[in-house]
């Protein structure tokens, strides 16, 4: 489903007929997903619907058992998250995937550390100074305020950690950021800041896929929403053509009688 205001003729990232089996368990069955440039796509579904598995396939953590992935119109195969990252596909994990014992800067460039050569290029050392400067500039650029980039991540609040995790995902020319429940673990007062950051990503032309249980999140940041049910595509819609109660109905696997099912009747 192409966004109405888009001039692009092909999606940036596409999954075609993706299935994923874990032993005898079918986690995903023939799932299609399109993500267009500069779009925020919400993925909803009940626990066990296959959202997280789909995201892990898109970010290269799981290879699909069947089906194919396409990026920029070309078929791609990811053998590790690194392959996906090299194309600019980043994932912000639900459990945040930060190392608490290390400082903010080190977390931001973990796996892509700046290096400097010494002894005529014989030994390549890790460049602390450049790393700190890079991280500081990057956070300033995103208007994320922290006491110091040398602060350890374990000293931060949940919202600050989420901010660092998002900052980290776009530190190196990201084109797609995939977020798994970015607001689930946050204090209410921090949710808004994180959602604004996500809108900020869109303003930078980055495409975002976001998994969330919270209708408020979906209806605040997304352009389009798609629902998975029992590991398969169930429904999708542009955000302005749907309502919270309809989306909640999809999560429960129904396309009718949604008024009675919905807990969240506020529109």
């Amino acid at each position: 489903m192409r966004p109405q205001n888009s001039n692009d003729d092909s999606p940036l990232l596409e999954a075609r007929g993706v299935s994923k089996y874990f032993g005898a368990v079918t986690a995903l069955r023939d799932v299609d997903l399109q993500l267009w440039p500069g779009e925020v796509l919400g993925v909803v579904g009940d626990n066990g619907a296959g959202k997280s598995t789909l995201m892990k396939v898109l970010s290269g953590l799981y290879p699909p058992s069947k089906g194919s992935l396409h990026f920029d119109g070309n078929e791609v195969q990811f053998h590790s998250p690194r392959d996906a990252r090299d194309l600019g596909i980043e994932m912000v994990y639900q459990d945040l995937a930060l190392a608490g014992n290390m400082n903010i800067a080190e977390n931001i460039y973990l796996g892509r550390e700046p290096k400097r050569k010494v002894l005529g290029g014989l030994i390549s050392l890790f460049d602390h100074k450049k790393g700190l400067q890079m991280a500081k500039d990057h956070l300033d650029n995103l208007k994320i305020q922290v006491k110091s980039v040398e602060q350890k991540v374990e000293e931060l609040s949940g919202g600050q950690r989420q901010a660092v995790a998002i900052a980290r995902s776009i530190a190196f020319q990201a084109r797609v950021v995939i977020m798994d429940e970015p607001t689930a673990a946050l204090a209410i007062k921090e949710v808004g800041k994180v959602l604004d950051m996500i809108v900020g990503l869109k303003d930078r032309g980055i495409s975002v896929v976001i998994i969330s249980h919270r209708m408020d999140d979906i209806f605040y940041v997304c352009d389009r929403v798609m629902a998975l049910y029992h590991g398969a595509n169930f429904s999708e819609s542009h955000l302005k053509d749907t309502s919270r109660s309809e989306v909640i109905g999809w999560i429960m696997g129904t396309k009718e009688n949604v008024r009675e099912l919905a807990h969240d009747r506020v529109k």
Partner: protein
Amino acid sequence: MTESSNHEMNNEVPWHVRMIPFFDRYGILIVIVVMCLVLWAMQPEVFLSWRNISNIFKQTAANGMLSIGMFLVILTAGIDLSVGSVLALGMMTLAVSNASGVPWPIVLCLSPFMGMLAGFVNGVGITKLRMPHPFIMTLGMLFMARGLANLISGGVPYSGLPDPVRFLGSAQIYLGEFDGTRYNLPIVFLFTIFVYLVFWILLEHTVFGRRVYAIGGNPEAARVSGINVDQTLIIVYTICGFMAGVAGLIMAGRTNSGFPNAGQGMELEAIAAVIIGGASFFGGRGQVLGIFGGVLIMGLIRNGLNLNDVSTFWQQILIGGIIVLAVFIDVLRRDWGTRS
């Protein structure tokens, strides 16, 4: 993001939390200075004599080698129980091959090489055979390496090694004679300093070192960041084994022999030194300088208790108590220093 709450925090932080960075940095140093003062007060004649000090250096060198390797492993939230046996395996390979006429340059390399090999097997077992915990794999290696050391030597000690092989463990630099005392600096002391310097550079200033810390902090984060965790762990265990082999070479040099029950229980002393030195069993925490302090503290305890004629039984009890105390301090520090 939350600048206002940070300001509030600063005023609310109680004194014992604000002291954490200070004690993280200087705590060990304070303990060492206090211990030296106490020992000096108890044995003013002997303790500060050059002979005793150089003895402490010589006796702690092997533990120093094991401990720095163990530190690397504990940084990744792992453990290597095999280092004592691997030390013996290296030592016996060296002694037996020397007795059967292998030229000394090869003999010299054999102990570190065997250590490396054992460490590599540990690393591969932990990562590729997917052992549920490094404890299992290295416990297996503890028995295998000890068995091999006994097997190749027939369970008997070999003595008499050529000077070049003994160099690292026993050579001394003559510094001069003052007031009728001859001052000799053991080579192994300089070597220990050199090794710790290399490890400091490795851990603080190389990408590999920072990744070791990252793996200890959150292996999942390291993995999804594209770090090859398995490969890094294999290198870590290989280095740890290598250091055990170096310790075997040093001990062979010091005792001018190889004995198959060498290093028994030394893995536990190394773990103790690492923990006392401020590393955390949870991984990702600790500094090379702290480990050096931990090794010195272990050496000072032994030396001080020996000088005061305290029985080895009491020594064991005391060291045990100190380990528990050190870990308890680590637990308190974690509770105070992190938000969850």
